[in-house]
């Protein structure tokens, strides 16, 4: 169609269609097709989450009882029992890991943002931190095995809860440093200047002004790092090992839920398989709760 106005240039170069939407046009059909494909892909992507959660809830949820938390796992072939030692063990090992990695990580993050002037050393630490974050988790187990387990540095003990905690700390460290560094970078420079302006020392500024101002992002990241560590298995299988008994201090082998799931999943006994599902239920609930906690913490930053 052509218009009759005199100033109109050679519109004939392009086909002019009416303005109405034509669903049979190739581009509109293609659009619909691609939107459907993207929706299908997204559906496939979230399907495993539904299925995993569903099975963990159904298979693990039906085993929930008080005795699950108060009893020890049964010897192979026997029925009943619980995962009490593994629940306690996971908490102990995660606490050890947090006690090591949080102070080191927050301190290191403070150095990177507040003290380093971004010179070669801090560049080196930053890059090293990224590399450490990319090191496979099993390797940190190998490392701790080599340094602590095989050398028996802890009172002659080889496998121990402490060794497992250190292996997890190696995994948590890069995350804690990164969140601290990024959280501190978000603190407006004016806030620091304000503190220096009233004569505060660097130490006071960091401790009383900068760190509190960055508390929300740091706490969010740290909670997520702890949740991630609590579910880790690979670094524990030959550091913390496993134990069918209640925890006997941090310098002895210890049971954890994640290693229990691994060991019991591949056993040919029904009772052990069921306990693996029960432990999965407890572990997934703990981790989802931590994720919700992290979301709740991070919601404070919007005010």
């Amino acid at each position, binding site marked *: 169609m052509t218009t009759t106005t005199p100033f109109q240039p050679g519109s004939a170069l392009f086909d002019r269609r009416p303005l109405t939407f034509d669903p049979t046009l190739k581009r509109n059909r293609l659009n619909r097709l691609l939107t459907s494909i993207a929706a299908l892909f997204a559906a496939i992507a979230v399907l495993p989450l539904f299925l995993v959660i569903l099975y963990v809830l159904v298979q693990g949820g039906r085993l929930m009882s008080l005795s699950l938390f108060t009893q020890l796992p049964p010897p192979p072939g026997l029925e009943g029992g619980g995962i009490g030692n593994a629940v306690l063990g996971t908490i102990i090992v995660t606490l050890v890991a947090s006690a090591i990695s949080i102070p080191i990580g927050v301190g290191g993050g403070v150095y990177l943002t507040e003290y380093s002037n971004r010179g070669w050393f801090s560049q080196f630490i930053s890059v090293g931190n990224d590399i450490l974050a*990319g090191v496979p988790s099993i390797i940190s187990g190998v490392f701790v095995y080599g340094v602590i387990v095989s050398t028996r540095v802890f009172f002659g003990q080889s496998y121990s809860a402490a060794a497992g905690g250190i292996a997890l700390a190696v995994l948590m460290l890069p995350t804690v440093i990164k969140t601290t560094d990024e959280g501190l970078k978000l603190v407006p420079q004016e806030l620091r200047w304000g503190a220096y302006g009233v004569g505060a020392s660097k130490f006071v500024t960091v401790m009383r002004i900068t760190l509190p101002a960055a508390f929300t992002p740091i706490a969010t990241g740290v909670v997520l790092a702890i949740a991630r560590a609590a579910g880790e298995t690979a670094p524990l299988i030959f550091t913390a090992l496993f134990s069918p008994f209640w925890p006997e201090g941090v310098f002895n082998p210890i049971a954890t839920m994640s290693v229990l799931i691994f060991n019991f999943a591949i056993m040919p006994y029904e009772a052990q398989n069921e306990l693996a599902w029960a432990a999965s239920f407890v572990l997934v609930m703990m981790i989802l709760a931590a994720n919700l906690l992290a979301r709740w913490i991070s919601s404070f930053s919007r005010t």
Partner: protein
Amino acid sequence: MTTDSSPPQLNADAFTLRRRPPSEKLVDTGFRQLSLALASVVAVVLLGIFLVVFTGAREAIATFGLSFITTSAWDPVNESYGAFVAIYGTLVTSLLSLLIAVPLGVGTAILITEDVLPKLVRDATGLMVELLAAIPSVVLGLWAIFVMEPTIRPALDLLHSLLGWTPLFNTIPKGPGMAPAILILVVMILPIITAISRDALNQVPEELRQGAYGVGTTRWGAIFSVILPAAVSAITGGVMLALGRAMGETMAVTMIIGNSNNFSTSLLAPGNTIASMLANQFGEADGIQVSALMYAALILMVLTLVVNIFAKWIVRRLSLRY
């Protein structure tokens, strides 16, 4: 705290710390040194890991040399070791899982960031993908053993009967194997690819999007010709990071891959990866087997390191062009 705002003649004696006491200066420098020391822990740990793995592997390196990479014997009785099967398994499972996960993850990210569906649906999808990332690997492994593998067995049987003449599918699926391991790896790396792609797409300037719509592109025209090209460097970096993660992923793979050191080209046969070999054997190994495992660990570290550095390089290189 309100201070007296009367004229400048303040009582100077009211401020007892006009001059900083030496103790405060000591705290200040002490804190600086402490934070420096804590930051150095990263370097110490990183170097420590390399040192431990390398010294542990030295004996095996001396004994087997580079043929360790190309031979597939894993024989504790004759003390003869080669990691070919595990290296092959690591590369094949991670690359194939990437092949499946990249379209799924990038497609999901597009769905989340571009307004193709109502916002509620998009937000819910994003949240669920994030939660998927929080599920521990060992739980996914448990699920893979008891739910996923039995469920997909008929499909794998069908693959075998249809494509059994190709070397990729010429064994009968009997349970654990490479194919289920690849699928569980897809589940594990999807959240990373989705999250990084989503961030990359969100960072594409709004003006570019408007410019594309302004010349009359359709939604997908804008996505393919303007938005994705602008985000490609960050997405590629994310894909490389996911590859590194897939190569080092241990538990879920260990539980479902079958841990066999017999080489097979078939994806339906059991296989092994370096990480699952370490998980299975490290605790019980002794003598030169420990060293051989350390050698394998060293190879895994080098592989992931190369991939991660490559990821950084790609992001920097491609983003300069844009």
